[in-house]
């Protein structure tokens, strides 16, 4: 079984369970992905399958990249990722991998994407600092406060939480359940929110910390 698949986040909605509970779901167009390369222990030192997703026009791809994708013969792709696979022999270059081959309803998955960019943000939004009061003579509103001590260590420790770029980074959300798989439309419905904006590429993989029932 291949470890995961690539997809495109389409948006969120809700559906109702049979007992009337509301279930928030993210709709993801997962696959079909094309096997572009197989990596083996002999040649590369590890086993993996490289998948391509999201077709794009051939003239928008550089010649070296096109040469790499030519072997599959399925055109050019904008998103390429490697996934480990337990049964490497079942996959050949040019094969299509669809969502129902990888996931079933009820599976627990991890979803990786690029989070929405928030720009340069202060410590209150970025690190949930509490800040000071806005009124009653306070002059300490949204500042970070003291960032270290004086004589020792005479420097600011690495990793100190400060203002800076927030979002637009790789984020993984773990342990999301698959609510529905629709192979005819290449759609999967995942319970809960996943990182990223609509139409962004996400990587869906079998969960690494699945709680034991």
């Amino acid at each position, binding site marked *: 079984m291949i470890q995961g698949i690539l997809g495109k986040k*389409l948006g969120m909605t809700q559906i109702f369970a049979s007992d009337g509970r509301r279930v928030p779901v993210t709709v993801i167009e997962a696959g079909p992905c094309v096997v572009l390369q197989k990596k083996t222990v002999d040649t590369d030192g590890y086993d993996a399958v490289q998948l391509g997703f999201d077709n794009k026009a051939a003239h928008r791809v550089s010649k070296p990249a096109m040469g790499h994708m030519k072997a599959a013969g399925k055109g050019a792709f904008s998103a390429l990722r490697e996934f480990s696979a337990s049964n490497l022999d079942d996959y050949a270059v040019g094969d299509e991998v669809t969502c129902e081959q990888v996931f079933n309803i009820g599976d627990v998955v991890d979803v990786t994407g690029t989070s929405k960019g928030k720009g340069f943000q202060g410590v209150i939004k970025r690190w949930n600092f509490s800040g000071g009061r806005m009124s009653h003579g306070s002059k300490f509103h949204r500042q970070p406060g003291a960032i270290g001590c004086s004589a020792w260590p005479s420097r600011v420790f690495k990793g100190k939480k400060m203002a800076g770029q927030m979002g637009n980074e790789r984020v993984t959300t773990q342990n999301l359940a698959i609510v529905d798989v629709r192979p005819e439309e290449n759609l999967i419905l995942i319970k809960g929110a996943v990182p990223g904006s609509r139409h962004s590429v996400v990587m869906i993989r079998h969960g690494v910390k699945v709680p034991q029932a």
Partner: protein
Amino acid sequence: MNIVDRIGQEHMRKNIPPFKAGDTVRVHVKIKEGEKERIQIFQGVCIKRVNRGIGSTFTVRKVSSGVGVERVFSLHSPAVDQVELMTVGRVRRAKLYYLRKLSGKAARIREKRAI
């Protein structure tokens, strides 16, 4: 229509009477007690409707033994067995929050006369 809206639409119900804020409705709610399922009726004035596709809700207000009770229902939830439209009220706004401050005779809503 986009795919996300279509998935929501699959779970929507079709047989909803055209009720509005101000109308008196009877909501048949499915209640699960252990294994058994029974239907409870909640009757009151609809004071609010929120139209958000599959996320649509409506709020019903009634005065139960002197205490105002409001319940928010999911319009398309399977837990709502049926919505019955009892009377159509004549009101001049879409959200009847003003009813919360009124009691007794003042909280009545005039019925709309059929033309």
